[in-house]
C-alpha cells in the first residue's frame, strides 16, 4: 500500500530532537512556527502514547494483581500496586473448583462458553459464507434490498429483540438451553459477517471462477475449490470476530440461562458471583482473569489478521 513509501523514511530516525536535524544551519535554527510546533508535537506525541498505553493496560494489570493478593491484604493497603507478600493462587483454585468441592464451578462455565462460541462460529460461517458469496458475485433481484435489511437490523436495540425471543423460547422450552443461545448469537452476528466476507469475496478476481466454470465446475464446486481457499484470511478473521462476540456476550446469556446454573457461560457465572456477598473481590478478579485470558491470547496471536479483516474496505472511506 501507499503508506510505507513515505512514512518509514521519516520516522525511523532516532526519536529525540527531530526538527533541527533537517536544517543546514546546525548551531541554532531560528524559532519559526514550524520548528516550535514540530518540537512540541514531538514531545506531546510520546506523552500521549504513554498515557494511552497506561490507561488501557493498567486495568488489566490491576485485575491480575488483585487476583493474586488476599482480600485482607487489599483492605489494609488498597493503594499497593505490587503484590506485597508474594503471589497466592488460592482465588483461582476457589473459582475453578466444582461446587461440590466448595468452589464456584468455573470449569463447567468455561466448557459452556467454549461450546457456545465454537458452535456460533461454525453455524455463522456456514450460513454467511454462502450468503456473502451470493451478494458479492451473483446478480439477482432483491440483492440491494437484502444488504439494506441487514444493516437496518442494527438500528434496533438488542433489548428489543430480547423480549420476543424471551417469550418465544419460554414457550417452546428452549430457554435455558445452549442451543437457543447459539441461534440467537448467529442471527445477531450474521449481518456483520456477511458484510466482512462480502468485501473480501469482491476482491477475488472473477476470472479464476470463470475459468473453473468453463472447465465444467458447478457453482458449489467453484465456491469450495476456488473462492473458499482464496478467502481464507477473511474467513479466519471472521471466525475470530464471531468467537469473541459469542464468548463475551452477556445480555442474552443473562436473560436465557440465568435459571439454569448447569448451562451458565463464564460471563454470566461471573456476574452472578458478583451478586453474592460472601465472595471476596479478589475471587471476582480471579474469575475476571479466567474470563479474559482466552480472549486476549487469541487476540494477540491473531491481531494483524483480525484488524485487517475488520477494517477491510474502510480505507476507501
Amino acid at each position, binding site marked *: 500500500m501507499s503508506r510505507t513509501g513515505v512514512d518509514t523514511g521519516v520516522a525511523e530516525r532516532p526519536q529525540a530532537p527531530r526538527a533541527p536535524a533537517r536544517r543546514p544551519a546546525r548551531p541554532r535554527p531560528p524559532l519559526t512556527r514550524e520548528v516550535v510546533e514540530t518540537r512540541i508535537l514531538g514531545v506531546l506525541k510520546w506523552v500521549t502514547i504513554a498515557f494511552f498505553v497506561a490507561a488501557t493496560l493498567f486495568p488489566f494489570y*490491576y485485575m491480575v494483581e488483585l487476583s493474586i493478593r488476599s482480600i485482607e491484604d487489599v483492605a489494609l493497603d488498597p493503594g499497593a500496586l505490587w503484590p506485597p507478600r508474594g503471589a497466592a493462587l488460592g482465588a483461582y483454585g476457589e473459582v475453578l473448583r466444582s461446587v461440590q468441592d466448595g468452589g464456584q464451578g468455573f470449569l463447567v462455565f468455561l466448557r459452556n462458553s467454549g461450546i457456545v462460541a465454537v458452535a456460533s462460529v461454525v453455524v455463522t460461517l456456514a450460513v454467511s459464507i454462502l450468503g456473502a458469496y451470493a451478494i458479492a458475485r451473483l446478480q439477482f433481484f432483491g440483492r440491494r434490498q437484502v444488504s439494506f435489511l441487514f444493516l437496518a437490523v442494527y438500528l434496533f436495540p438488542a433489548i428489543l429483540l430480547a423480549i420476543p425471543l424471551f417469550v418465544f423460547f419460554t414457550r417452546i422450552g428452549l430457554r435455558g438451553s445452549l442451543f437457543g443461545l447459539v441461534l440467537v448469537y448467529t442471527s445477531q452476528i450474521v449481518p456483520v459477517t456477511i458484510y466482512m466476507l462480502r468485501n473480501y469475496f469482491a476482491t477475488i478476481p472473477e476470472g479464476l471462477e470463470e475459468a473453473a466454470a468453463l472447465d465444467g465446475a458447478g457453482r458449489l464446486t467453484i465456491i469450495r475449490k476456488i473462492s473458499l481457499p482464496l478467502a481464507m484470511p477473511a474467513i479466519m478473521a471472521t471466525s475470530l470476530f464471531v468467537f469473541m462476540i459469542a464468548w463475551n456476550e452477556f445480555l442474552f446469556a443473562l436473560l436465557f440461562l440465568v435459571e439454569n446454573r448447569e448451562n451458565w457461560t463464564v460471563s454470566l457465572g461471573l456476574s452472578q458471583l458478583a451478586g453474592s456477598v460472601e465472595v471476596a473481590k479478589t475471587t471476582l478478579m480471579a474469575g475476571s482473569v479466567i474470563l479474559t485470558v482466552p480472549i486476549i491470547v487469541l487476540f494477540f496471536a491473531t491481531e494483524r489478521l483480525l484488524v485487517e479483516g475488520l477494517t477491510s474496505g474502510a480505507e476507501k472511506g
Partner: protein
Amino acid sequence: MATATKPRRRGPTLAQQEARAGLALLSPTLIVVLAMVVLPILWTIVIAFQSLRLRNLRTRLFDFSFTLDNFETVLTSPGFLDALRVTLIYSIVGTFLSIGLGLVAALVVRKPFKGRTLVRASMLLPYVAPVVAVTFVWQIMLDPELGVVNAIGTSVLGWDESIPFLTQRSGTLSIFGFDLGVPTALTVVILYQAWRYFPFSFLFILARLQALPAELDEAARVDGATPLQRFWRITLPQLQGVIALLTVLRFIWTFNEFDDIYLLTQGGAGTEVVSVRVFNYLTGRGDIGAAAALSLVLALLLIVLLFVYFRFFVGRVEEAESI
C-alpha cells in the same frame, strides 16, 4: 471448452440461473435473519399493544385485543423523562469522546516506530476484552474502600474522603476555587464508555489515515504549512467521511447500550438509560407489554434522531465538500 457445452438453449437463461443460485445461496442467511431478527421486531410491535405479563404469558399470548395502556404506563411513569435525558447525554457525550480519543490515538501511532505493533494491540484491549470482566475491574478500581483510585486520591492527591464514584448521584468538583456540581456516576459511566469504545474509532480512523495519499501533505509542507495547519487543513478534511460514519455507528450503539451501564451501576445513581429501564420492566416487574412499548419508543426516537442527522448535518458536509 467443449466439455462445458450443455444443452442450454431451452433451459433458463444464464441470468435466470444466476438469480436462482443467488437466492438459493442466500436463503439460509435470509431464513435465520428473518426468523430471529425481523420476525421478533414485528412481534415486539404486536406485544407492545397487548397487556402481556410474565405470569399471564400462557393465556394471553394470543389474545389480540389491542390497547394503548402500555404506552401510557411507560410514557407517564415517573423517571421516564430523566431516563431519556440521561440516554441522550450519555450517547452524545460518549460518542463524541470515544471518537475524539480514537482520533488522537490514531494520529500518534500513525507513523511507524519501535514497538508500534504492541502499542496498537494494547490500545485495542478494552474493546476486545469481555464486558463483564472490564466492568468489574472498573468497579473495584473505583470502590470507596478497596479501590486504588480512592487510595491514591486520599493519600496522594489529598481528597478529604473517598468518593463513591459509582453510587453517588452528584458531587462537587472544585476547580480554581469554583465549586461545580457534577453528576458523578453519570460522568464515570461516560468516561468508562469512552475508554472501552475508543479502540473502535481508533481502528477505523487509523486504517483511513494510512490509506491517505502522502503527496498532499508533502505539498503543503513544501509550501510552508506547519504541522498543525497541515492537520486542520489537509488531514482532517480527508477523515470527514470516516468520522461521519463512526458518528452514526457509535451513536446508534451507545444509544442502545445496555450491558456496560447495567453491569457498572445497575442503572442506579442517575445513570438509568432507557434500555436499562426496558430490562427492569421485563425482569423486575415481568411486564412484557410495557417493556416492548418502551423499547419501541427507544427505537423510534433513534430513527427520528438519525433522520435529523442525515437531513441536516450530512447534507451540509456534502455541500461543503462540493465547494
